[in-house]
């Protein structure tokens, strides 16, 4: 088996759009199943009331990471053909911070706002308008911020390469950290549920 199939020419651009549509359906389906069409459910993560964002995200990450690791180990997937977004430290740091602040204020992220709109959330539609405005503002400011945007380029680099740790070892550590996080998330939820119950009395 030679994967990624698209990179090995199993199908062309036109078919890839159908694949995109089908994969998107799965993406939206599971986001909605998790409750991520609801801003209150998403925002609860940042008040320790409901750690679903963390749980869902890290379960998805370790699932895909482990799958990819075993497939490449078996020689089924050529990892060098899977696209990696290049790292630019300053833009990644600042972008993540701004996005995080926008997340708790707006209640959604781009993907979940699509699900919110699909399930009738009016604030989801307003969020999307804001999203368009933000992207437009970024586009208009781009000539002035291009220097910062492209500062400190590190190229396409993974943590195993950066830290010089074998891929499998790092995968193992990430799984351990995630499992520890799940355990902790459960305890945190329980603690705050008791706090809230205490307040209500």
């Amino acid at each position, binding site marked *: 088996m030679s994967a990624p199939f698209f990179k090995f020419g199993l199908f062309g651009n036109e078919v890839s759009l159908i694949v995109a549509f089908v*994969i998107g*359906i799965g993406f939206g389906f599971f986001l909605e199943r998790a409750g991520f069409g609801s*801003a*209150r459910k998403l925002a609860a993560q940042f008040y320790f009331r409901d750690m679903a964002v963390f749980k869902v995200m890290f379960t998805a990450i370790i699932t895909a990471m482990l799958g990819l690791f075993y497939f490449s180990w078996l020689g089924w997937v050529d990892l060098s053909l*899977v696209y990696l*977004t290049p790292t630019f430290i300053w833009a990644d*740091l600042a972008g993540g911070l701004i996005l995080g602040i926008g*997340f708790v204020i707006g209640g959604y992220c781009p993907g979940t706002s699509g699900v919110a709109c699909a399930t009738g959330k009016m604030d989801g539609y307003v969020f999307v308008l804001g999203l368009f405005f933000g992207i437009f503002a*970024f586009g208009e400011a781009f000539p002035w911020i291009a220097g910062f945007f492209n500062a400190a380029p590190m190229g396409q680099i993974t*943590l195993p390469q950066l830290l010089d740790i074998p891929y499998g070892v790092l995968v193992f550590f990430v799984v351990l950290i995630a499992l520890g996080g799940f355990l902790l998330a459960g305890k945190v939820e329980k603690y705050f549920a008791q706090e809230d119950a205490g307040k209500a009395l």
Partner: protein
Amino acid sequence: MDPTIDTLSVPKTETNKKVKVKAAQPYWNPYLSGFGLGLVLLSAFVIMGRGLGASGAFSTVVASGVNAIAPHHASGNAFYEGYLGDGTTSPFKSWLVFEVLGLIIGGFISGALAGRIKKTTEKSEHISFKMRYVYAFFGGALMGIGAKLARGCTSGQALTGGALLNVGSWIFMLMVFAGAYGAAYFVRRQWL
């Protein structure tokens, strides 16, 4: 249907209009939905050699809008140009645009099957609808700027890059949580 479930669930998400009183099913266990999401991501890797995304599709819409109104302005800007392509094919014939169209359909299918399609606005009872919309717009704008600066959002960077152990994505992800937890206190009345 048990009517007590409805009286409990209705006040939480204020309903704009009269809706059919029908209890929505509970959400799935987060580990089960996460596993499903992970399999979708894994299939994107294996079939396409790329991960998931979302903000890129919104950028295509913005770039096309600017191009329609002021084509010279758009073609002179490297950011818009990146989404417009060389002009031989429509910018909307892009992988992310089709993926996000699917995402909307998939979200609708899941919501419809669970009885969760409802015209509502998500907020606590402590703030007005107007304030919620102001927050939603402002937060969305910040989200747009952040996602473009970081070359991806929660889908393209955090999920995809997280699974690929991408250095920039892990930096990004830590900063997202830092930013959101840091700002949470100031907007708590909106949610709690």
